[in-house]
């Protein structure tokens, strides 16, 4: 599964809502969305095409009309989250109030001397996680594509943050994974998206009644470094409030023996965690592309931004020697 990688939103849109938010407040900015969201919901075929594969799987019992209502709620949730990100936490205008599920356990994990791999997802307000992670006082290494067109960037803007944010570019040699392992061995945090593959090795796992291919790199990083592995998401709960939910996917001891089964097992547990989250917050899913396209088959992972810049750039795909994994030759 390779992401379409499309950003909905523009710099102009962000600037508009930042200005509107400052003038009329967050509620006022939300109100303006009622004039914009109908266009994106009902008149943008690309969004409709991209959203329905998820909605039909999440709500298989719904009629066509019911799915239209779900689409409206999903796009509205996405728009409100974008406004939140534009107005709070990302800009200097404020911070999110985060309600942390099982806070003592999260603090224990963040304080652990092991490295920590945090597997994020394009759900809810994932950017609101960054300031929280900074509270740990550790360096957070975020493996993130820097899209020059991205209207909202990831920065530390929360005054509570004590750590350092280091963005690792996955288009650097070996996908930045050598730097990531070194950081984990120093006991730092590495944050990486687990729900989109931008090329590279993937593994097929069950998700919402079908099979999707998820990247194996988050789990390989944990396996190779002995780091803890935690899935973590954040979603909008209301005006200026976010909820944070997490689960330790597998303990480091599960990686002993360096079995590659660890990666499949971990990806399966991550998908199960995401399903549980989406049962509770179904409209917080912001992957607007068909993850199930091909039902986990190969042939879509050939464009790789993990390609080392001077170490072979062939994109001929082959099925890996390792059962169940796919890789890009020359990645």
């Amino acid at each position: 599964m390779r992401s379409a990688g499309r950003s909905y939103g523009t710099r102009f849109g962000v600037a508009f809502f930042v200005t509107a938010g400052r003038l009329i407040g967050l509620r006022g900015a939300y109100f303006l969305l009622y004039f914009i969201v109908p266009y994106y919901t009902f008149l943008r075929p690309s969004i409709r095409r991209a959203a329905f594969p998820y909605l039909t799987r999440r709500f298989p019992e719904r009629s066509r009309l019911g799915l239209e209502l779900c689409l409206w709620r999903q796009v509205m949730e996405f728009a409100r989250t974008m406004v939140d990100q534009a107005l709070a936490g990302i800009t200097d205008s404020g911070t999110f109030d985060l309600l942390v599920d099982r806070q003592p356990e999260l603090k224990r994990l963040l304080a652990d001397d092991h490295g920590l791999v945090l597997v994020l997802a394009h759900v809810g307000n994932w950017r609101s996680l960054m300031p929280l992670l900074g509270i740990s006082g550790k360096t957070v290494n975020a493996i993130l594509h820097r899209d020059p067109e991205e209207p909202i960037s990831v920065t530390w803007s929360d005054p509570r943050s004590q750590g350092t944010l280091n963005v690792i570019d996955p288009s650097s040699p070996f996908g930045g994974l050598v730097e990531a392992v070194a950081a984990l061995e120093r006991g730092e945090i590495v944050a990486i998206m687990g729900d989109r593959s931008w090329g590279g090795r993937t593994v097929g796992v069950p998700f919402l009644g079908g099979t999707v291919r998820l990247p194996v790199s988050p789990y390989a990083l944990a396996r190779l470094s002995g780091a803890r592995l935690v899935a973590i998401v954040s979603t909008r709960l209301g005006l200026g409030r976010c909820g944070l939910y997490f689960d330790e996917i597998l303990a480091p001891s599960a990686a002993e023996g360096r079995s590659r089964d660890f990666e499949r097992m971990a990806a399966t547990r991550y998908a199960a965690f995401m399903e549980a989250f989406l049962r509770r917050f179904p409209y917080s899913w912001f992957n607007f592309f068909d993850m199930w396209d091909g039902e986990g088959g190969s042939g879509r992972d050939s464009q790789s931004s993990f390609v080392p810049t001077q170490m072979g750039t062939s994109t001929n795909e082959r099925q890996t020697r390792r059962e169940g994994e796919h890789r890009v030759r020359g990645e």
Partner: protein
Amino acid sequence: MCVENELKQMILNDLGIKDIELADFDDNMPLFGEGVGLDSLDAVELVILIQKKYGVKIETIDKQRDAFASVATLAEFIRTNRADA
């Protein structure tokens, strides 16, 4: 055993590369792309194996990426940087 052969054994056995026989594994064969066909995760694993076996620590790949061109270049890099060099 020379470093070149040790590296080849490491790549074939520890990284699970089955497409190439040891006898066909030339020292100058590209490790990535159309050569041996390693990928970024293999590279990370190789870095860790090299660190354990030879004490050569690689924390950033920017300056050392040329060393990963082939077994020959990697062996030379290890000989130059190993702890007992």
